[in-house]
């Protein structure tokens, strides 16, 4: 059953409580949120395999800490969309502000427009696919997971990267500390093809470059002081 929640009438607290309430979700697995009006914290903390469509723009931390749910924002979204997501899928039809997918541990974040600075900051296992461009310092201290960028990347990509893998089709303004371009081997082409397919994006994996950690900063060395 599809349930429509009018944020302008029924409020944010009521929406989130309903999306957390197992009894409510027994009968309503599909949700449509109208009059989002850029509100913060929409659909955060969902812990069930439901679907939520937000008709309009969302503010900060939309779908934060999502688990299992499929959330689609039919508009732009603010800072920290899908922050610390554990699983499930979050799709942004428009653009995303900074820190999209920050510290997310799992799941798939798709941004059909552009993402601002620090996309995937401290990512810990999430997959992020951006159809457009990403801003500066994206994937900063990225620990695990994969990021695909079909457009260009801003300055300082992958600064202080750990084990996250980055695929960029367009230009990279500059690489951050300890981030290097790496060979695209067969397993990477296959992995990238799967990520693009799961996001529903038609691109040639062979046109991407892979970036990862040089692993030179994994142990503190005083000779690297200028890199820290």
């Amino acid at each position, binding site marked *: 059953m599809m349930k429509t929640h009018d944020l302008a009438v029924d409020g944010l607290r009521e929406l989130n409580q309903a999306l957390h309430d197992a009894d409510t979700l027994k009968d309503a697995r599909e949700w449509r949120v109208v009059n989002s009006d850029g509100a913060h914290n929409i659909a955060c903390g969902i812990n069930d395999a439901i679907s939520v469509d937000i008709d309009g723009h969302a503010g900060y*931390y939309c779908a934060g*800490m999502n688990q299992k749910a499929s959330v689609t924002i039919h508009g732009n979204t603010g*800072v920290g969309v899908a922050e610390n997501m554990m699983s499930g899928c979050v799709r942004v039809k428009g653009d995303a502000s900074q820190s999209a997918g*920050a510290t997310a541990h799992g799941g798939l974040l798709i941004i059909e427009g552009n993402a601002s600075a*620090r996309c995937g900051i401290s990512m810990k296992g999430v997959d992020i696919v951006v159809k457009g461009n990403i801003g500066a310092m994206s994937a*900063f201290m990225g620990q695990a997971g994969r990021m695909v960028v079909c457009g260009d990347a801003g300055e300082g990509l992958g600064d202080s990267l*750990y084990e996250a893998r980055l695929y960029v089709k367009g230009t990279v303004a500059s690489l951050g500390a300890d981030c290097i371009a790496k060979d695209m081997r067969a397993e990477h082409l296959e992995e990238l093809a799967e990520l693009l397919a799961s996001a529903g994006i038609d691109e040639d994996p062979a046109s991407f470059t892979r970036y990862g950690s040089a692993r030179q900063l994994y*142990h*503190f060395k*005083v000779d690297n002081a200028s890199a820290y």
Partner: protein
Amino acid sequence: MTDETQTQPYNPALRESATFGRDVIHEIQRAAETGIYDIRGWGAKRKVPHFDDLLFLGASMSRYPLEGYREKCETEVVLGTRHAKKPVVISTPVTIAGMSFGALSAQAKEALGRGASEIGTSTTTGDGGMTPEERGQSSRLVYQYLPSRYGMNPDDLRKADAIEVVLGQGAKPGGGGMLLGQKISERVAGMRTLPQGIDQRSACRHPDWTGPDDLAIKIAELREITDWQVPIYVKIGATRTYYDVKLAVKAGADVIVLDGMQGGTAATQDVFIEHVGIPTMAAIPQATQALQEMGLHREVQLIVSGGIRNGADVAKAIALGADAVAIGTAALIALGDNHPRYADEYQKLGSAAGFYDDFQDGKCPAGISTQDPELSQRLDPIAAGKRLANYLRVLTLEAQTLARACGKSHLHHLEPEDLVALNVEAAAMARVPLAGTNWVPGQGGY
């Protein structure tokens, strides 16, 4: 740690430099040999104005004391009454500060939970996430929401009795952490989603917000995720305390955790520990003033940490405006850290019982600040938890004794009026009169 001059005949020609003392000379020599700054654990070792510089004015004629051991002096504190549906109730105003699994062994974390639970107070997770042992043994567990977000997940958020958003630490305000690779066991690495054995940096700032306005939205998000059930604490390192407290309260904090410069750490630069932040005693009046001006003193509770050692420190912190205190270093000592029973092993590590601060090495003979399985096994969590519980009881009893002497039937009835300072510096920082005078420096004449 022998003092050579102690074993030599008096020689007036041996005149130590006040500027280049032996500790300074040693540090210059060490830096020249290694080319790297000193990283260590524990808190500040330099002497700074402290609670010892304050005295209570026990009752005589103008005040009426309560009978020790007979008349009641209550100690219960309720934390998070502002917004949370389920505030945290603790039986004593002494809690356990956040310390990470990773910095500490699983046995030490379990012991902290056992000790705190035995007397009905809370303990706190740390950088690295929540372990099942810790949750299982802690009747009241505060879950830290840290910049690194290591191991952060909504399931654990919902298991917590309170959430503490960490913005700073008294030992290193503005700084992050560095857990060196030798302490990164398979389990620690797994919890932090990082490879085993590599140095793990904990960021100094949160990745998805950049200022107090963002913090307000972040706190609202945490409340939404947890359905407004549990209190949200905000922890700050003591620096620009007055402004930081006001901003944190405005952002929606239920509880402020204020960590002074004497607060401990697992590992950071010595120069940071000793030269950044302000003393705990100096920070409390600033925080209290901020809360009072907002009309929220005792409604937004204030937990103070950083060098709390005994019941007098507890009572003095409360008299200056705190609702509760948190202990870290002292709790580890109660568990068995730096105990003389391991004197020989401390010596082998180039240290001594009572001086050991190389927590970053992971070789703690007491099995506390280590991930070495053999060393960790030395700490019996049950026995260590008992020692901690005993210590917490003593802190509470001592604070009650002092409060009764001041005629107070609840620890929270203590107030600055009950205190005087032994020196001008303490009087100015604590904002209480210099002993024997009515003079509070900075607040007018006699």
